[in-house]
């Protein structure tokens, strides 16, 4: 092996003077005692080349398979295999969604337990508007409510902002359903379709309601509304 390559070198076409009296010839005596490679020019075992080829093949396959879209758009692909589990339908849960919205939007004033703050923000627990007349609640969420509000046990004088522009019909239905079934309330859910209907009927109302105008508006839209939701079952 070693000698072959040396001879071939002599014949090569570069015309360089090849010197055969390399360091090996000088130290050949000591080197021959070692049974292992001396040339510094071995080619390596065959399996090394197998690994190289397989690695290249895998690398290019991987790039071809998972390259994705070549752009500067941020996107995360391929982290889960597409198929079976991806299509699983999640049933929309009005109450759970309503709780999420309540925490985010309503809780700051009406408090986590729905008790409100006396004299300013009405309590929702057992409130007539919430349990028996949910249309009032929907209206005040849609357009807001200001001015004095007289109730049996207390009088409130705060400002309810309008949420009609930031919550859609499903959100409002969800949050009203949530407060109707929480804080000790035991009324039924209301459906997004009803909120849609109310929103359409009150489309030309601008600004917040007061205790009086909300009565007028309820009276005006009542005949056009479908039947009221079932009252509390107690």
């Amino acid at each position, binding site marked *: 092996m070693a000698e072959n390559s040396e001879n071939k070198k002599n014949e090569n076409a570069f015309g360089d003077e090849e010197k055969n009296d390399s360091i090996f010839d000088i130290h050949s005596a000591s080197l021959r005692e070692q049974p292992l*490679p001396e040339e510094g020019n071995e080619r390596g075992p065959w399996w090394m080349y197998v690994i*190289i080829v397989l690695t290249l093949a895998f690398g290019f396959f*991987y790039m071809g398979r998972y390259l994705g879209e070549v752009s500067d758009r941020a996107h*995360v692909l391929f982290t889960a295999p597409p198929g079976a589990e991806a299509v699983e339908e999640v049933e929309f849960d009005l109450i759970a969604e309503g709780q999420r919205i309540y925490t985010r939007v309503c809780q700051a004033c009406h408090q986590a337990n729905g008790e409100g703050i006396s004299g300013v923000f009405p309590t929702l627990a057992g409130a007539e508007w919430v349990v028996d007349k949910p249309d009032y609640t929907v209206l005040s969420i849609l357009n807001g409510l200001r001015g004095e509000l007289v109730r049996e046990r207390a009088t409130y004088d705060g400002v309810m902002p309008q949420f009609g522009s930031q919550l859609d019909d499903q959100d409002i239905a969800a949050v009203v359903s949530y407060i109707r079934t929480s804080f000790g309330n035991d009324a039924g859910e209301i459906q997004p379709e009803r909120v849609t209907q109310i929103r359409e009927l009150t489309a030309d109302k601008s600004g917040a309601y007061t205790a009086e105008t909300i009565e007028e508006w309820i009276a005006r839209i009542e005949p056009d509304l479908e039947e009221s939701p079932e009252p509390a079952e107690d």
Partner: protein
Amino acid sequence: MSSGHLSEIDSSVQSIRFLDGKARYPVLFLIASGVLWLLFGSLLALLASVKMHAPEFLGQWSFLTFGRVRPLHLNTMVYGWASMTGAGVALWLLSRTLRVAIPMRPYIIGVTVIWNIALFVGSIQILSGFTRGIEWLEFPVSTMIVIVWCILVIGIAAMLMLFYRNVKTLYVSVWYIIAAFLWLPLLGGVSSLPIFNSPTVQAGMNWWFAHNALGLWFTPIGLAAAYYFIPKVVGRPIYSYGLSLLGFWGLALFYNWNGFHHLIGSPLPTWFVTISIAASVMMIIPVVVVAVNHHMTVVGSFSAVKHSPTLRFVVFGAMSYTFVSLQGSLQALRSTNEVIHFTHFVVAHAHIGMYAFVTMMLFGSCYYILPRLTNWEWQSHKLIKAHFWLSAIGIILYTVPLQIGGVLQGLAMNNPDIPFMDTMNLTIPYLIARSVAGVLLTAGHLIFAYLVVRIVSKVGLRPEAPTIWKKTLKET
């Protein structure tokens, strides 16, 4: 002796003893500075490790909190110990393999002084809370630029050696070192540009830099040392010079895109990550080539390994390189990354790379270089052996439990039924094992520092005769 390449060398002037004499002060200064930062970094490492399982330990001072101690540990080890010692070893290797004295010696010493000052200032900055908050780049940009500039100046000296070399053919170590001195200033410069201000892009830059700093700066220096010391100590030429070149260009081709595999699952464009994973897997090619080459050179010379402190460390480092690289290729795959991402497994992996490979290579190099620079002998063979075993057992005790713990941690984190606190508690025994291992490693470092101080200051008993030139001395 009129044969081949040897005739190219004017050995009357360029004898290795002449070259070592010229290399003495710059290389000694770089290595000694490195050892100083190694001790400081070890102390910080112990602190950080203990804080992982005893969070209140020394937590009453803000400058000793985990968020400052741990980054400083990383930075002093990387830019202090490994970079300084690595630069010194690289210069010495170039001087030996290019047969030319180290040029710009006063500049190199001056630059090393500045480098030390920058590290000192940077340490105070990190401890007092001034940090970039980017892993591997915690030093403020201004400090980092000074360090990169220091390496650049030393790199210029390396280039001068290349131009004024006394041999025609470049040994494979030279390829690695020259490339490392080209690449690191580039990496350091780019990472300091003020354009990576969006979080995603900053993360991309972070891992592009951090992984390349390991792969294009420390790995080339470590491999250059292995390619020189293994044949040199065994006394047998490298198994295949052709394969060694294949290994080098494989690294140059595949390494620089590896870093983004740290960002699997991030909002970085998918093709960035995919190419990076493919490149990480392709790293198997140069790694296997290098492993075969080193293994076939050493095989059959076990006694040479046993009798040489250098080769013990270097062979341990070379084996770790193979192991850590193959592990890294597997880790980069999305399926494995799903489990081990954000776990202690990756920390252990990084320590196999920076300690079991790079640091062990540097220890081995120091054991070879320092007696030749100082014309003095190591004080105690027993202490060298103690250092080797403390380091070897220490790093195994560090990595094996931590990687097992990391996999368990990853599996637990992927299981939504297991509360996060349970996952935390699960890792504590492994973290304690790490602290124990840290004590062993630090003890090894103290022994090493003691030996270095003894050999540099030449105190104590002078050995009867320097053993390193045993043959020559016997003849005289």
